[in-house]
């Protein structure tokens, strides 16, 4: 029996690891953070009582984390970054930097659970220190015990804004404004789904209670469309606009704050899957995701994928997918296990909830009018919207890939993770066309997955 290698220690990866171990096969779990839990279950200590009740679901997280640590079949590599991954006729070669040491992992059986990160939209001033993502504010709080600021604006779209706002309040900060771009009535059409997922509603009410105790009223149909700096170059205030259903600006007001946590859903990180040659497709929310069959297997036999990289859907869906991927991978290496109907039913139910979320929190094209020609689009390389327009109008770029090569957009340290999706949309808008799937998928092509020092590269094998 071979080792199953799992990449990612969040809800999907932890669930998959336990499923494989339960089936009797040894597991290597590779995670880039210093503590297991991924983004969703960020934590700083091992016992629940010592955490602030900032995350309703953390109990489940700690349960899984401790279970993984307890199983001798599961070897965990923490602080391990995969910088290159190639698939050559059934053999996967992963090059890893594990706590500063260069290592190679060869395996025929892989489960990819590399998760997602906050999706951001560019607007004037979004690069001012003090403007952050909800995930960043959450990570600082749950992972490091630091409240990002005293007067916090929480904005964007999606249910994730609620726990972030609640967390700030519980930690003693003031949420000076909580604005959701989409209107609440979008949920009405998903009534059945809500009934199916009552625990989610309970969770939402938990946050809402905390927020109203903080004397904050969430406002709908509004968005942060600009940020302004004080003389010292740091965040001083934001412009919050009433927006119509297409995100076009109607009325604007200015709010003073020292932190703005702004997020627009999530973007899956499929770099590893793409590097291995797994087929990627564009989902309904325009995310590039890894294609999988009903057993969570990608188009490459032996490579499975679970969690946000197969489609944004939250931690519950990630766990359900992780279990199926783990069982299927264990079966692939010869264990006598089967994916049960119950597993599939649970995944289907959670998928329905995820689909309802996507319908309830769309991102409309009106955002493309928020940036002006001076707005930075590629933060790493300081490329403005005006530079992008020049590459289309004057240099003749007819797709986002060429615009990127002319402007260096997406060529900086983050390799397009932050700006990539926005560049595809903005270039298509300049050309008066719709972005194609090829545009979107080529924007996530990253053969070198994370920067690696030349010295470490030179020393390795």
């Amino acid at each position, binding site marked *: 029996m071979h080792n199953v290698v799992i990449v990612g220690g969040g809800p999907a990866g932890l669930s998959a690891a336990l499923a494989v171990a339960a089936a009797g096969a040894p597991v290597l779990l590779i995670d880039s953070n210093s503590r297991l839990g991924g983004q969703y279950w960020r934590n700083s200590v091992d016992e629940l009582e010592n955490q602030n009740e900032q995350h309703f679901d953390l109990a489940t997280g700690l349960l899984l984390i401790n279970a993984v640590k307890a199983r001798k079949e599961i070897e965990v590599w923490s602080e391990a970054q995969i910088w*290159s991954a190639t698939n050559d006729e059934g053999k996967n070669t992963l090059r890893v930097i594990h706590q500063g040491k260069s290592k190679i992992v060869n395996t025929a059986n892989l489960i990819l659970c590399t998760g997602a990160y906050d999706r951001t939209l560019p607007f004037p001033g979004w690069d001012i220190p003090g403007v952050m993502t909800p995930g960043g504010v959450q990570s600082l709080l749950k992972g490091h015990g630091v409240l990002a600021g005293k007067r916090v604006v929480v904005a964007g779209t999606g249910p994730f804004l609620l726990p972030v706002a609640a967390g700030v309040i519980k930690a003693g900060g003031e949420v000076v404004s909580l604005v959701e771009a989409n209107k609440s009535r979008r949920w009405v059409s998903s009534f059945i789904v809500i009934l199916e997922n009552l625990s989610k509603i309970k969770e939402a009410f938990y946050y809402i209670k905390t927020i109203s105790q903080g004397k904050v009223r969430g406002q709908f149909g509004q968005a942060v469309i600009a940020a302004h700096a004080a003389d010292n170059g740091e965040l001083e205030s934001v412009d919050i606009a009433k927006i119509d259903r297409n995100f076009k600006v109607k009325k604007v007001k200015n709010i003073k704050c020292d932190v703005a946590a702004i997020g627009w859903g999530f973007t899956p990180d499929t770099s590893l899957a793409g590097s291995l040659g797994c087929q990627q497709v564009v989902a309904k929310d325009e995310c590039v995701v890894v294609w999988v069959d009903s057993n969570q297997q990608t188009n490459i036999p032996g490579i499975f994928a679970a969690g946000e990289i197969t489609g944004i859907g939250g931690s519950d869906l990630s766990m359900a997918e992780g279990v199926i991927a783990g069982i299927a991978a264990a079966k692939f290496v010869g264990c006598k296990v089967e994916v049960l109907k119950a597993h599939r039913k649970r995944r289907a139910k959670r998928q329905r909830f995820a689909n309802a979320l996507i319908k309830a929190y769309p991102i409309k094209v009106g955002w493309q009018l928020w940036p002006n020609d001076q707005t930075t689009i590629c933060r790493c*390389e300081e490329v403005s919207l005006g530079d992008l327009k020049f590459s289309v109008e*004057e240099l*003749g770029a007819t797709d986002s890939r060429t615009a990127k090569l002319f402007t260096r957009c997406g060529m900086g*340290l983050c390799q397009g993770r932050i700006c990539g999706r926005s560049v595809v949309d903005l270039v298509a808008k300049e050309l008066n066309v719709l972005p194609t799937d090829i545009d979107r998928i080529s924007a996530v092509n990253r053969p070198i997955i994370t920067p690696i*020092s*030349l010295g470490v590269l030179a020393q390795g094998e």
Partner: protein
Amino acid sequence: MKNPDAIVIGAGVVGACTALSLSNAGLRVLVIDRGPVASGTTGAGEGNILVSDKEPSPELTLAIRSRDAWFEIDTDIGGGFELEAKGGVVVSRSTKGVSDLKKLASLQKENGVETIELNASTLQEAEPFISKDVNYGVLYPGDAQCQPMLAAAQIIRAVKKRGGNFIQGENVIKINSNAGSIVGLTTDKNTYSTPIIINATGTWAGEVAKLANSYLPIMPRRGYILVTSPAPKLINHKVYDADYVANVASGEADLQSSAVIEGTASGTILIGASRERVGFKNDLNIAILRQLARQAISLFPVLTNIQLLRAYRGFRPYAPDHLPVIGEDANVSGLWHAAGHEGAGIGLAPATGELITAQITGNAPFMDPAPFSPKRFKGGEHVAV
């Protein structure tokens, strides 16, 4: 564009420079590419404009004129492609290497290349971070750098402003001739009439020659470039190991590599250079990346803590005798080839364009183009010209 005076197939740097040269001579030029500007080898180029890497030869004469022509183009079209006269430093650490380099530099000097010999101390002044065990180098103030994608794009932009046009996304499927002379070509979308066609399709020039029932033995030679994350300014010139020159002239199929390192206007450091004959194989070969990293660190130990951000590869077009092909087809009159520059395409592009234009317009070319003539491949054999 109806009935252009000339069609250039290929919107890479050679096609762009040729189109500019013809436009400046008064022709209405149509450029056609099956993809965007610089979507072939030009987009994977480092941006080298060198006079340092050639022995006295027709190619050196071409390189010297071409380097100056780049600065004229910069002025002519208003810049916009990060052209920089940064100079090159060639070094060697072996006794034989140093002696060969001295000889080469002295011959180049006699042929019009400015060279300045550097000893251990002046080398350290020129490149403070170079490894302390390098004791000899030659500075070539003439070596220059540009951003090749922007160069091709800005030149095509100028061509369009001067009465020319650029069509993207059409694939040439047939080159049409009548009684041994060009009458036009057919793409997957249109047919165009013209008496003059320039084949500037680089690594694919052989395939395009076939479309005219002609023959060009151009093959790909793969190369990788490492790109670092933005770094402090550690390297002042293009710096390379003298072995680089030998590799270019080598015929070996196996991996050839030697250190070529420089900074860029955007702050990244580019590290090359490797040469392999693996057809159009597209994989990312970690062993090669590792070799390039080792060579670079050996020359500049300070690079140890600089991060590799991305790596890309391109396919250099080359002919069996390692000389570019510049001139009229052996069989079909009106069909001109401008291809096969093997890793020197960017540097040699302007002078290539000038040679083509001179021969088409009947003006005196700045040098005898015979050594580059496609007629040397007449009948599929290598015939001495």
